[in-house]
């Protein structure tokens, strides 16, 4: 008898157990349904950003929110551009792509990415992003990505060097030349200015474009014929090459890393670079000159190179609306105000994009009054300098190589160089 009883009890217990688990499963899936509709881990192809590393540290938060994890694969800028194109067009492995101002046109017009706002959860408040970045994220009247980084150009200079030389921050290019000439002193390890020489539509061409546009240059006429082989381009190139005489070694084949690195290590007196440099130069972990920098707007007539990088929903990997909702949820979470505040705390000022963060007391505490004011002051100068077209990367990269040859002295004839680029543009447009 006793044995029978025991058997019975065991049966009941196991029955209860299965019921309990199935209830739990149902509850959990409902929770997931409520939160998003994620069924698989979200895969993201991104470019390395310090702020993303911080975000990765809070992966469990997203897991709780969506019921799935995520995985970010990092590729450097050139490879990221190439491989995301290949993946978006043929494979479709990634739910989320990292796109930028330069390839947005291509990704949007080919349908490789889906419009973001159709899926973006309202509670994350897209309107909070800096308006410049919102504009950059817009193509063809639709918003395609949520920014992770971006901005315009900022002038950063060394107060100690300027005081010692008794000069004022330059307001125009003429003044810039005067100032640079005066403080350039390589014998004592101080270079007047720093530029980027490395090939690439986002490298040397990026820094050259403010001169080109500032002098009134245009890429193309209304009818699509190239217009850049102009006086403005010649003058911009001449100015750019002239300024390179004051730029520290390593920058002729270097890009952002080399020029900002030279500045932060205390070898450069003055630099006009993308806005994230501002915060970096104030951070003693990154900068040897954090206590002696000041900020200003780029000297006239330079335009600020408006740019923004961000996350967009991949079309191929997310065929259903539910999948797109999931990808959008990740994008919204990764670029949320909470995550931006975490980056701020970690000193990663380059990956901040929200107005509410810029205006927060934490921001003021970290960077004082001057930087936010300078950032605000640059906004009116910031423009889209490049040709907004899917063929821009190809054209920009070609000019990058030619420009690098000019900078390193492998060729000297600027007119001939521009003519070569023009021939290439005509060929490109004929395809």
């Amino acid at each position, binding site marked *: 008898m006793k044995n029978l009883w025991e058997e019975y009890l065991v049966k009941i217990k196991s029955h209860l157990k299965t019921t309990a688990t199935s209830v739990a499963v149902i509850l959990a899936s409902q929770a997931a349904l409520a939160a998003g509709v994620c069924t698989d881990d979200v895969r993201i192809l991104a470019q390395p950003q310090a702020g993303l590393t911080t975000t990765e540290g809070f992966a469990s938060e997203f897991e709780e929110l969506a019921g799935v994890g995520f995985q970010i694969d990092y590729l450097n800028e*050139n*490879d990221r*551009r*190439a491989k995301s*194109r*290949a993946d978006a*067009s*043929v494979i479709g492995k990634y739910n989320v792509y990292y796109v930028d101002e330069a390839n947005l046109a291509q990704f949007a017009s*080919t349908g490789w990415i889906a419009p973001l706002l159709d899926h973006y959860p309202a509670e994350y408040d897209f309107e909070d992003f800096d308006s410049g970045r919102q504009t950059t994220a817009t193509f063809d009247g639709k918003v395609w990505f949520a920014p992770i980084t971006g901005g315009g150009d900022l002038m950063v200079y060394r107060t100690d060097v300027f005081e010692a030389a008794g000069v004022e921050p330059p307001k125009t290019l003429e003044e810039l030349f005067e100032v640079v000439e005066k403080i350039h002193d*390589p*014998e004592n390890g101080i270079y007047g200015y720093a530029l980027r*020489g*490395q*090939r690439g539509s986002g490298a040397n061409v990026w820094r050259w474009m403010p001169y080109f546009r500032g002098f009134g240059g245009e890429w193309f006429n209304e009818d699509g014929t190239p217009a850049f082989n102009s006086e403005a381009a010649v003058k911009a190139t001449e100015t750019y090459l002239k300024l390179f005489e004051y730029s*520290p*070694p*390593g920058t*002729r*084949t*270097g890009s952002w890393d080399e020029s900002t690195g*030279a500045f932060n*290590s205390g*070898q450069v007196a003055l630099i006009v670079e993308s806005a994230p440099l501002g915060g970096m130069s104030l951070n003693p972990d990154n900068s040897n000159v954090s206590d002696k920098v000041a900020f200003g707007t780029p000297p006239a007539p330079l335009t600020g190179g408006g740019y923004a990088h961000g996350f967009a929903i991949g079309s191929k990997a997310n065929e259903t609306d539910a999948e797109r909702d999931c990808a959008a949820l990740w994008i919204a979470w990764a670029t949320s105000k909470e995550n931006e505040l975490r980056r701020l705390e970690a000193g990663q000022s380059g990956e901040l994009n929200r107005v509410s963060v810029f205006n927060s007391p934490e921001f003021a505490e970290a960077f004082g009054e001057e930087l936010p004011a300078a950032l605000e002051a640059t906004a009116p100068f910031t423009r889209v300098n490049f040709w907004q077209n899917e063929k821009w*990367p*190809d054209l920009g*990269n*070609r000019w990058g*190589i*030619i420009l*690098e*040859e*000019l*900078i*390193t*002295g*492998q*060729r000297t004839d600027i007119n001939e160089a521009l003519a070569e680029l023009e021939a290439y543009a005509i060929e490109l447009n004929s395809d």
Partner: protein
Amino acid sequence: MNRRSSLPYTFLIPTVALLAILALTPTIYALNVSFTDRTLFSSSSNYIGFENYIDLLSDRRFVNSAYVSLKWEIMTVTTTMIMAVGLGVLMFECASPKMRNLYCLIFLIPVLLPRVCAAFVWKFAFHPLYGIVTYPYRAITGQPLDLLADPTTALMVVGFVDVWQWGFFFAVIIVKLLESLPPQPIEAARLDNAKPWQIHFYVTIPMLKAPLISLALVKAIESLRSFDLIYVMTRGGPGIATETLDMYAFSQGFIEAGKIGYASSIAVIMLLTTIITFTIIWKRVNK
């Protein structure tokens, strides 16, 4: 071996068949794609005949990269061989057998390093501002030294890293070859009062002619694999000063334009040139 045995067939046929498939498929594929306008972004393409090849002829970057590749081959092969022979003889003459073994072990290290690593090590060592190699120059002149940004020296610096990897390795092989030579001719030359360098110049090196030629050939083949170093150190720059054929094909097929058809035509030209050249040389040398 017993001729009736099936062993040679069962051991050779699957392997050779697999290798043939693995080698011929991409070759034929490359040939096929080189006649199309295939890009990385779509899987559809049209046959355009020899257009890619015709375009190549007027492409200044292609002509330049072919020239850079040729320079690279000649430069790395000759310097590697000169350094290897010199260092090999030096070890043979000046180091005791025990020390020689130690040196051999040390000199094997560079070639075992991943080329990506070697490239990074030296890229930082040649850094114009912080590099350890450029430090003496900076300390003396107070000027920075940016060799990788200078079109006249960039290729040499990259070539230096290549020679650093292979020259030491070949020196080890040459010491082993010298050790394997019969001692009588060297002793006879010594009895004739020949100086060490004379012994090596007139006796040992001529005796090693055949293996040295083979080594040079191996180096020439391995020099075709310059991509890793150039990719990490200069990416073909400054300008196009260090853009070799494989770097250019990579740029065309991948980074800049994704023109796989065009890149394939470069690859096909490289393939034909190297296979024909090396087959002729190899067969002639090994006759």
